């Protein structure tokens, strides 16, 4: 077979402009965007949500929403002008040369068609049918490291886990051996370990395939691990571009600088100062931009920035070709920090715990099997402290939080004490004071706030219910409350949908704080937010804690975030605490092999390749946990039969630091010293 002559570049966008028609007006989403991706190159596109990343992807495959249109420029895919293709040629281009994987694989697969059929239809397009197509499909599933591909072929998407679904989606995308693969946030919403698996898979496949990759993500660390070059998109414009390591280590646009500073890095903790944020908001789509699009949010901006659109300055040097759209690109890193790093707060004197949990169990009945969602959990929480809960999906984090809040009753025997008083298992039997002492902030503020009420109504009602305030007193407290979460009066009149995700989350936090709670459970409160907004929310939570001495139970799969906010960490696996201890000790080690694996799965910004401990397979079913140590089936440090026969106790290795492992603490220390990788 002769290889057809390939164009020099897999993808070229030339002066591309795209607009969405809203209320009868065309509003610019992409503005004169030019970029090229070479054959076999992996190109990362980063930026906050709303900056046009996904629009780039959808434009390339010509799948814009109904109100979207290309208003200028050209797209060339493998030398072919995509915009000149007619319906049939476009279909063939999609069938033969370009593929796309996007977030939320659960929705990307057809819910009522078996996996096998969804794969074979791709081969049928290429003229292979029947047994041949099936064999190809199985080979494809093997390629994305799915064990038992024949079994998976017979299943429907809902019978697979999120990680498996995404593997299938990747298999489908690779089935036609595309020359261009577009990955649009392929790991967003997956667990840290599943995310690492999927990224590993993509990295391996990249070496096996010739495909060029356009990788879209808001996760800078992921992009830094995956991509050769990176482009930073802001308000539909490319503001900086260059080799990934150069851009991330030596950024030359204030926006890139600011984005990188938002992440809690280098093990930063709340008592070491606040996180940097990016003040203000992305310009709305279609906003008229006269000068630099970022000028309004940039502390370096002067008159010139506001009036004169900066060109893409060529900053190429021996490290590679790069460009930055900033008049003062040489000074970009001097961008002042937005938040003063205030001094470390004084260590808190030891006080009586506000919450004491002892021997807590929760067993669900599932198809006649007992499902032990939480097993024998005991821990303390002191006033003003944060307990971080980490673990994969299905490890029991959320169930534990629900037990505390009284949303589900625990099994008999366990106790939950709030400020020395036993809490009733059911919410309905708890006193008003106890109810308002424990509040929750959810991941998705959209579903937590009543969309038909104004913010004033939502918070007023919370004040009435939780603090018993009405009339003047309520008004006064409402003022305090919104100021404490840094909202203003003008936010009170609007309804939730008129606010951005970050502002909505502030409202949700204000609601939780209405009754002066002692404990707030934060269930992935920043997972749906951009890094800049995440930083602001984390700062807010830290401030509120310092001021009000409130305690947090903080659930997140972003370990950097957990580390920033937590004083203590509990690592859960199959409903059991595998490790419990002060945040720093848990992170720096020696730690439980499971913790070790979790930590090494985190993509890091500053390191290129780290020896990664891979967790093979899925988390076992809680209805049928493995005998002995529940982690033994996936443990990279399994020592022998003892792991399969006896469940190790949660033993105190250091004062305040307990580990559930048969390997002695000193030995763990030695084993892990060899592989120790400081979490960046």
């Amino acid at each position, binding site marked *: 077979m002769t290889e057809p002559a390939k164009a020099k570049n897999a993808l070229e966008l030339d002066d591309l402009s795209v607009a969405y028609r809203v209320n009868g007006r065309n509003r610019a989403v992409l503005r004169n965007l030019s970029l090229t991706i070479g054959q076999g190159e992996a190109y990362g596109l980063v930026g906050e949500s709303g900056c046009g990343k996904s629009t780039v992807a959808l434009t390339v495959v010509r799948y814009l929403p109904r109100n979207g249109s290309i208003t200028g420029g050209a797209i060339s895919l493998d030398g072919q002008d995509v915009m000149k293709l007619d319906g049939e040629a476009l279909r063939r281009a999609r069938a033969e040369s*370009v*593929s796309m994987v996007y977030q939320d694989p659960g929705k*990307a697969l*057809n*819910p*009522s*068609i078996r996996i096998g059929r969804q794969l074979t239809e791709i081969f049928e397009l290429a003229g292979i049918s029947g047994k041949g197509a099936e064999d190809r499909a199985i080979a494809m599933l093997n390629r994305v490291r799915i064990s038992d591909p024949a079994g998976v072929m017979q299943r429907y998407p809902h*019978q697979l886990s999120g990680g498996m679904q995404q593997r299938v989606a990747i298999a*489908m995308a690779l089935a036609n051996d595309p020359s261009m693969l577009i990955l649009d946030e392929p790991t967003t919403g997956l667990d840290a370990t599943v995310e690492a698996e999927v990224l590993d898979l993509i990295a391996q496949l990249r070496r096996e395939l010739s495909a060029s990759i356009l990788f879209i993500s808001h996760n800078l660390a992921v992009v830094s691990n995956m991509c050769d070059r990176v482009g930073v998109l802001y308000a539909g414009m490319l503001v900086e571009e260059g080799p990934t390591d150069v851009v991330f280590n030596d950024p030359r646009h204030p926006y890139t600088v600011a984005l990188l500073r938002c992440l809690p890095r280098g093990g930063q903790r709340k008592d070491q100062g606040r996180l940097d944020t990016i003040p203000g908001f992305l310009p709305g789509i279609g906003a008229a931009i006269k000068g630099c699009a970022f000028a309004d949010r940039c502390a370096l901006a002067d008159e010139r920035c506001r009036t004169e659109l900066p060109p893409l300055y060529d900053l190429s040097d021996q490290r590679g070709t790069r460009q930055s759209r900033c008049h003062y690109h040489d000074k970009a890193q001097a961008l002042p920090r937005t938040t003063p790093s205030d001094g470390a707060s004084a260590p808190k004197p030891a006080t009586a715990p506000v919450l004491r949990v002892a021997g807590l169990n929760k067993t669900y009945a599932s198809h006649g099997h007992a499902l032990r969602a939480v097993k024998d959990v005991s821990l303390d929480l002191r006033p003003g402290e944060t307990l971080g809960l980490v673990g994969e999906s299905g490890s029991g984090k959320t169930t534990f939080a629900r037990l505390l809040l009284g949303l589900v009753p625990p099994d008999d025997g366990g106790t939950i004490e709030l400020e020395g008083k036993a809490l009733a298992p059911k919410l309905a039997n708890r006193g008003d004071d106890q109810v308002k002492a424990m509040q929750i902030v959810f991941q998705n503020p959209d579903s937590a706030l009543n969309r038909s009420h104004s913010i004033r109504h939502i918070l007023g009602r919370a004040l009435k219910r939780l603090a018993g305030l009405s009339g003047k007193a309520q008004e006064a407290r409402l003022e305090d409350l919104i100021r404490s979460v840094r909202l203003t009066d003008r936010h009170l009149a609007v309804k939730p949908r008129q606010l951005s995700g970050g502002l909505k989350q502030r409202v949700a936090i204000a609601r939780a704080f209405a009754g002066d709670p002692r404990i707030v459970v934060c269930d992935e409160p920043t997972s749906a937010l951009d890094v800049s907004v995440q930083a602001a929310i984390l700062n807010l939570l830290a401030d509120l804690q310092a001021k009000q001495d409130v305690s947090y139970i903080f659930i997140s799969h972003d370990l950097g975030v957990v580390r920033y906010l937590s004083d203590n960490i509990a690592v859960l696996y199959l409903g059991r605490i595998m490790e419990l201890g002060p945040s720093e000790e848990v992170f720096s080690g020696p730690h439980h092999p499971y913790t070790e694996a979790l930590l090494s799965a985190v993509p890091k910004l500053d390191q290129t390749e780290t020896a990664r401990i891979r967790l093979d397979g899925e988390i076992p079913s809680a209805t049928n946990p493995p005998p002995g140590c529940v982690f033994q089936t996936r443990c990279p440090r399994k020592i022998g039969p003892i792991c399969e026969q006896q469940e190790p106790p949660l033993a105190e290795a250091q004062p305040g630091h307990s580990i559930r492992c048969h390997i002695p603490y000193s030995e763990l220390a030695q084993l892990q010293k060899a592989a120790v990788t400081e979490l960046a």
Partner: protein
Amino acid sequence: MSLSLVTLFLLSTMVFLGGQVLPGNVGRAILGPFADQRAVDALNHSLGVDRPLLTQYWTWISNFVQGDMGTSYIFRSPVAPFVIDALGNSMKLAAVAFVLVVPIGILGGVIAALNLNRPLDRIISLGGLSVTVLPEFVTGIILILIFGVWLRWLPISAAWPKDAGFFTQLYYLILPSLPLFLVLFGYIARMARSGMIEALDSDYTRTAVLKGLPWRTVIWRHVLRNALMPTITVIATQTGYLIGGLVVIETLFRYQGIGSLIFTAARGKDFPMLESGILTIGIVYAVATLIADFLYSVLNPRIRLGSEQ
């Protein structure tokens, strides 16, 4: 399944109690205002309506379960043949309307969704909505005037001659079924349209398109099945209406369906007839819902197989 049985039980109880507390004396209603009080009492006694309520209900319901629907107060003969005849007639009419409206309604919705916001969509959506809001006695009369009186294409009464064959009966049923078609068309088309729009906007449709599948395959294989699931449920809930709620149409076209049977029974305080009729409709309704649930689960693997997690 058990839920439908509970529903039927509640329905029977309500119907029975409602019937009994309706003011009126059965014997007096049958014999007329000038009859002797003793004759009325005697008739009441022989009908059993002077017994305690609970006993009457129990007798009635246990007989009903065994297929004995009791004796009509008015006709003095078993109820069952009346109900069965009327049910048969109603089902014929419903079947004709059903066969007309379901495919055409779905097709209309699908076409509207595929031409979203274009003239064809507006014609179907607006047209469907306009005819749906017109009550069937209005459309019925208009249709009678146009097709029966003016054009003389179709008979204005649904009462076909004795011993009419299948096609003759069908011919007589077209006009009465048209108002039903109009009432339901907009409803079904709208459900199908919104289901289609949702499915067309879904990520899996995007996946299918980006695989490079021909548009036809995308629609047939990936979109339709997911799009029409909610419509099926809606159609099932309309079956009860089609079979039991047609008093107006049956009266207008002088058709002996179960709707007019119940209406007549209610006016004559013929409780066994009334109760059996309503309960029969309830059973039909429950069966239709069951069939819809079954179909839905066949189409939707998430219901059929459940989640393994």
